[in-house]
């Protein structure tokens, strides 16, 4: 179980002045700028959960992950990972967790991948039998044998990410932290990585905390999401609940032969903003956004057919990305005010 209680992280950096003149000024003056990266965040994660930790760039996701892994020390507040404070007992905590930072590698750059695994086996003190069975499992899930003897620097991004994930799992950690594990990967590799994460979670009851910008990761993996913005937690719950609460609109897209002959909202007896129809004369498409709490798809279709001739219809579910985008922009403007 991971308990995060009211953590806050401030960074103090010397103020930089613009231009050459500013650089000289900076030599003599030392004004400090205090930046709050994480502001009073609390949550509890149970064993075996897969939690998506999302937020826009610079929202404080990576900072939180770094505090949970013991790399950074919170300015205030407390973190307990299975009863261990990662900042105070970094080594003890590190022995029980696996970490992948998608933009970095923990592998030895100049050496064959196999060497990295041998070193990690020693560092984490994995018994030989466990190592053998673990490697068999990782080979099966991640297909490491294809490039096991190649130097790490020659691996493609997808291979390197699989290798890094394997390296993080070698000692069978209780908790797995993934910071953007699918960044820059193609669809097939992404899918493999997701499958691997799911299997590991299922078979070993590993707790997974992942940050990502890819809503596909969230939809396919996470039973719970935490959204942060400007260092504050703004949502904590299931993706479905998020969709229900924030995504109150659905959309119907219809191919039609001619423009609508009247107002759909008037026909359906609702106010204009509950049912907005847009006609694109070039593609002969009508897009209708409607409040799903007020109207239902059959009503819309019925009304539409009275106003025009319909040749094809698509019903579009609001996707998570759209909702999250709304939250980010909304949250950011709130923060500025």
């Amino acid at each position, binding site marked *: 179980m991971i308990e995060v209680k009211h953590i806050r992280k401030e*960074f*103090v*950096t010397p103020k930089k002045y613009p231009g050459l003149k500013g650089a000289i000024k900076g030599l003599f003056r030392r004004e400090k700028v205090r930046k709050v990266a994480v502001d009073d965040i609390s949550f509890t994660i149970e064993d075996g959960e897969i939690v998506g930790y999302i937020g826009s760039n610079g929202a404080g996701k*990576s900072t939180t992950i*770094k505090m949970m*892994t*013991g*790399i*950074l*020390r919170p300015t205030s507040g407390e973190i307990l990972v299975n009863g261990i404070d990662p900042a105070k007992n*970094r*080594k*003890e905590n*590190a*022995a029980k*967790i696996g*970490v992948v*930072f998608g*933009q*970095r*590698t*923990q592998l*030895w750059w*100049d*050496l064959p991948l196999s*060497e990295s695994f*041998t*070193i990690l086996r*020693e*560092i*984490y*003190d994995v018994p030989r039998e466990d190592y053998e069975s673990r490697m068999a499992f990782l080979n099966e899930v991640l297909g490491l044998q294809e490039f096991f003897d190649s130097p790490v620097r020659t691996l493609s991004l997808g291979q390197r990410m699989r290798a890094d994930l394997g390296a993080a799992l070698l000692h069978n950690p209780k908790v797995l932290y993934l*910071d953007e594990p699918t960044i820059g990967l193609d669809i097939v590799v992404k899918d493999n990585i997701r499958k691997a994460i799911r299997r590991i979670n299922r078979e070993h009851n590993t707790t997974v905390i992942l940050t990502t910008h890819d809503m596909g990761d969230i939809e396919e993996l996470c039973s719970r999401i935490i959204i942060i913005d400007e260092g504050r937690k703004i949502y904590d719950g299931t993706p479905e609940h998020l969709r229900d609460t924030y995504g109150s609109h659905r959309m119907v897209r219809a191919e039609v032969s001619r423009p609508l002959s009247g107002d759909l909202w008037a026909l359906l007896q609702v106010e204009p903003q509950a049912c907005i129809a847009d006609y694109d004369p070039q593609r002969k498409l009508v897009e209708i956004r409607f409040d799903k709490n007020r109207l239902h798809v059959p009503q819309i279709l019925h009304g539409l057919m009275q106003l025009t001739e319909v040749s094809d219809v698509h019903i579009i579910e609001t996707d998570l990305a759209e909702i999250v985008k709304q939250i980010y922009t909304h949250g950011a403007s709130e923060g500025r005010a």
Partner: protein
Amino acid sequence: MKGLRIYLPFTVNEIKRQMSYKGAFYLFILISTFGSFVSYFLWSAIYGSSPQAVLGGLSRSEMTVYIFMVYVTSAIVNISISDWVSEDVVKGTVAMQLIKPMDYRLSLIARATGVMAYQFVLPSVFIWIGLEVYKYFVLGLGFTALANIGLYLLSSLMSFLIFVLFDFCVGMIAFFTNYIFGLLMVKEALLSFLTGQLIPLSFFPAAVQRIFDFLPFSSMIYTPVMIYLGKYRGGELAWVLLRQLIWVLLLYGLGSLIWRRVTKRLVVLGG
């Protein structure tokens, strides 16, 4: 001992890494031996034009041994781990070191040990043997006594520890300034002077030498080389070795202290 075993792979790996960059390594040997010969001819000229046969307590033959033993010693002592620290800080890879259940400093020292082991075999031992042969057949001084060699090796090992522990503290500055390349250049220049690499410390005025006694630098290279030359006897010998041991302990403590402060205010660059 079990605790230290996990650092062994770092040592082994560093040896492998060194071997995979052979070209750069031989170039390094070539350049540094070249430097030693320049310094040899320079000192030959100085001795040749001096009316005295002994300068700074060293005869011309002893100076030859000094120059080449400095070379042998610095190859196994002078291993700049602050370069690695600054690289880890600038690239942000220090995060990847901290997620492993290990001590960052010990892992660096383990890596440095790998470099030391490699450089001890290539080229130090060969230069050393060459020097002994030269000393016996050309200078007519006879071989160095086994006791001196043993004491030299012990002293060099402590010199290595003093150097890397000191250099770790220097590297820690990178966490505060983020960039220390310029500082490392200054460090190189100062050390070549203060450790006796360039000029034997016995050439400095007595007052300056007294100050050197309170600094760790003379213990880095000057001490083992002077032991090799048999310049210390009895109580003095015990004292210089003890002083080295004290520096090992002091710098170890200082490094731990700084590290504790650094982890409190650590900023990981990039993402």
